[in-house]
Every structure is written in C-alpha cells, then in structure tokens.
C-alpha cells in the first residue's frame, strides 16, 4: 500500500508517501526513525498485522514547516529521510 500522509492548502501540496510493501521487511533497519532530525516517523502494526512506519499524527498537519529545515534552503542537498530509506519507500511530493 502507498500511504500518503499530509495535506494540500493554499500554498501547495505537502505529502510524504510511504510504500509499505517496501517497508515491511526493511533492509535499512528502520533508518528513517533516526534519520529524520525531527523524529517524525514511528512504527505501527497495520491492518494486515505487518509492521510498517507512518508519520506521527502531530506532524501530519504541518509538514511544510516541519520539513523546511531539511530542504535545500536549510542547507541540505538531499533529504535525510529519503537518503536513510535505501529501499526507496519514502518520497516527498514537494
């Protein structure tokens, strides 16, 4: 399943998508959990009893602001979360 967490508002579309099929047997040892400087990722057991990661509820309405520090304007050339997720399960829409 591709789970899209986020929102669209007047300034744009801000979604982090997680491909849970790539996430179930994580080859990166859940590196996203520590790779995100804000600790926005957490593990959960989905409806099919598989352990996957999701974006914590309290970050889902403010991704544009919470992720701003990791974008090029914050001095990063690549996103820490997508870099840490070597299976390529994590993507940003913006």
């Amino acid at each position: 399943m591709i789970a899209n967490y986020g929102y669209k508002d007047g300034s744009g579309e801000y979604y982090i998508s997680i491909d849970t099929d790539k996430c179930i047997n994580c080859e990166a040892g859940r590196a996203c959990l520590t790779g995100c400087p804000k600790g926005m990722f957490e593990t959960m057991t989905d409806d099919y009893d598989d352990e996957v990661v999701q974006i914590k509820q309290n970050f889902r309405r403010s991704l544009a602001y919470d992720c701003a520090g990791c974008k090029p304007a914050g001095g990063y050339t690549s996103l820490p979360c997508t870099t840490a997720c070597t299976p390529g399960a994590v993507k940003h829409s913006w």
Partner: protein
Amino acid sequence: MITAGIDMGSRTVKVVLVEEENAGGKLNYVVKGKHLMFPGDLDGDAAADKAFDEALSSAGLDRAKVSAVFATGAGRKMVNFATDSVTEMSAGAKGVSWFFPTARTIVDVGAEEGRGIKTDGTGKATDFAGNEKCAAGAGSFAEAMSRALQLSLKEFGDASLRSDKSIPMNAQCTVFAESEVVSLIHSSTPKEDIAKAVLDAVASRVCAMVRRVGIDNDVVLIGGMVHNAGFVSSLKAAMDLQEVKLPDMPEFVSALGCALLAAERQH
C-alpha cells in the same frame, strides 16, 4: 456467527451487524441490522455503546450472540469494548467490495475528512491519500455554508443543481470561504449559484486529493456527502466522469467493512 462494525465518526456513530451464512461451503454475509446516532456528549465509548445497543435492539439480537466487534473511524480508539480496530481505509475498501467488486477507486467524504482510496478488487486498500489539515474538503464545510445561506443541507444540494453558473471560490479555508459567501450574498448572487460555487469548491479539493492515488474505474463514492445530490454532480464534473457508483447505504459502508473484517478474522 454475528459480528459488528462500529464507525466512530467525528459527527455520527454508525453500527452495522453482519451474519455469516454457510451456503454449500461458500460463505455469505448478510446485513442483520444498522443504526446511526448523533452522539449527545463527548463520551465516545458511551455513545458507541448506546448505538450498539440500539442496533441490536432493532435487529432483535442479543449482545452475547455477537462474536466480535471491530471499530473504525476518527474516534475508533474511544470504543473501549471493541475487540479490535481497523483504519478507515481498510474498512472502506472492504465495505465497498461487498457492494461493488469491480470498484478500483473509492472517494470517502464524511463530516470532517475526505479521502481517496485505491483498492485491488479483493477488498484490500492499496493506496490512500487524505487531507489531515483542512475541513474545506469535507461535509462540515458544506454544512457551515448551507447555514450561512439559511438552507437545509438537502435544499442546499438541490439548489446547486438548478444553477449552471461557475463562480470560482478561491478560499482554501472554511473561515475565509464563509466570508466569500457573505460577499456573494451582499452582491445579490442567487442562492443556487452560491450553493453550486461552494459544492464545486469542495469537489475540486476532494478531486485533487483523489488524483494523488489515481482515478480508475469503477469509482465509488461513500460517506454522508453522497446524500447531497449537488455534491455528487459537482464531483462527477470535477473528476470528468460520466458515472460514479453510489451504494444504498453510503454512510454505513465503513461500518459494514469493519463488521466483514471482524467476521473474516474469526477464521
């Protein structure tokens, strides 16, 4: 075997009771009862309990006969007596597959949140997108705007069908949108044109969200907003679709899916 699904929404509690029948080795599921209730207080567990009792009473069933109770919806964690809970996506996908096995895209618009769900035809969700932030793509927004126009929700939906104008509403926020509606009222814009502008705006937001997961036929619309004929028309136009399938009991689909998942997990 009888199982129950409780959809604890932000505005209403929906309960569906399902009985499993074995017809020559093939399992069939029959809806034995359903009940919708507006919670009277903030105690979600007590509201769900009352709605459950009323569903059982209307179906002539005893609580002891129910093998499992699954909960879903925004308040699913409040239902303490539920044996398990599932997400709105899984419940919606399962419920829709019971009505329309050919469904591939589900548009679920409730009171507080809208979401787009892709399904594979087996009742499993494969992709979803919601809008966590703003109520302007959901039923509460339409309700607030109908109040501003002093129309009932039904009158509001029907009025929009009488308009052939397209007035763009740029507001992304319920609060700002209401001020746009007030401006339109002051400029003597007919109510039906304002109603259509509001529902077009909601449909546009919902459509943008569903496009994230992709629109494949058959498209099924579920949730309380299905009862708003104007919204259904606006959504079809926004998605450029000739046909959107509408189940008989759209607000109960997620509760039904929940009850079906509860039944399947007893095996």
